[in-house]
């Protein structure tokens, strides 16, 4: 039961973009077209799920038993950077079709703070292995949901007459604020 709750909390209640404000850069940068936003969302979900599993193993099998928690940040960032690089090579070789859609988004993900945030939160809350994976997957689905909704709205905004100073990042932030307001309606739906 806890696993299901953790998943839904990560998707809806504590949405990574709209509640924790992580992954804002791709959220603003890659949300102009629905297609690109969907690909970005899938790539992020993929990397997040794997990162949750790998950093759980590192934290619980290496850092904690050997008393090295001060190396947490350094080891996570190295693991994430190499993992993304490795995934890129793996997908390019094995699934060239998938690579065509996700390819350009993978390198961008290294500097996506949402990925590091998954690793930090699962360590901070001492989740179990399966719960961590559910959390990573849920966070990715939540990110995809937010960025696709945003892209849908921005495609409509293209034809709207926006006052000059608000064009670009400013109106995107305000739309995100309204979205965050809507997502607050999910508060209390599931308790973690």
């Amino acid at each position, binding site marked *: 039961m806890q696993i299901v709750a953790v998943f839904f909390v990560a998707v809806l209640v504590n949405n990574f973009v709209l509640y924790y404000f992580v992954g804002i850069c791709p959220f603003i940068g890659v949300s102009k077209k629905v297609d690109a936003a969907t690909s970005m969302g899938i790539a992020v979900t993929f990397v997040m799920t794997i990162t949750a599993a790998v950093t759980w193993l590192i934290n619980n099998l290496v850092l904690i038993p050997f008393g090295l928690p*001060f190396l947490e940040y350094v080891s996570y960032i190295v693991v994430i*950077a*190499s993992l993304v690089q490795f995934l890129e090579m793996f997908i390019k070789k094995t699934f060239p079709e998938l690579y065509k859609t996700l390819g350009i988004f993978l390198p961008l993900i290294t*500097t996506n*703070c949402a990925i590091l945030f998954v690793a930090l939160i699962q360590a901070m809350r001492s989740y179990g292995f399966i719960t961590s994976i559910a959390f990573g997957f849920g966070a990715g689905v939540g990110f995809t949901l937010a960025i696709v909704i945003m892209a849908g709205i921005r495609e409509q905004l293209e034809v709207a007459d926006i006052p000059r100073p608000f064009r670009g*990042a*400013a109106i995107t*932030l305000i739309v*995100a*604020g309204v979205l965050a307001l809507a997502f607050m309606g999910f508060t209390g739906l599931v308790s973690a």
Partner: protein
Amino acid sequence: MKNETLLSHFGKGLIQNNPVFVQVLGMCPTLAVTTSAVNGLAMGAATTFVLFFSAAIATLVNVIVPSQVRIPVYAVIIATFVTIADLILKAFFPPLSAALGPYVPLIVVNCMILGRIEAFATRNPILPSLADALGMGAGFTGALMVLGAIRELLGAGEIFGAVIFGSAYPPMLIMILPPGAFLVLGILMALFNHLQEKDIPILRKAG
């Protein structure tokens, strides 16, 4: 580049190329921790600390690091200073450390830091790099503090914990909750754009 003084490097980051309002970098901490002016100030100071020392080390090791592996090397340097900043906050300012929570380690992936190291520090001598790091850090801190102060004022009627509006003011809770962050930053950014279009000399876009 030659006739530019250290002061002008500092000033560019502060206003004309402000990392938050103009370059739209480092959005995660900007939105997440600015529920009060003091949190914004602390986050800005921690980020400036990390940027300053990482830029210094990155300029020094730049000559011996092959360019193919430079990004991982910078990431490790930044992560090291973030760990130091985190431990200092935990040891000397426990309430602030608790308020900033997981957003302190997230300084590692603050794109402003990697961006400044990549775009400026490794292409310039150490002194201008340090001036640039301080300017960008000050611009970032200033933006966070303004955002934090506005949200604290509207959301709690206080600035830096000092009561401004008195007890008759019903606090607009929404300003302290997540949506407030997006709304206030969006409006501030539009205001900044508007002022830049008016061509006030100090705000003029750096060419």
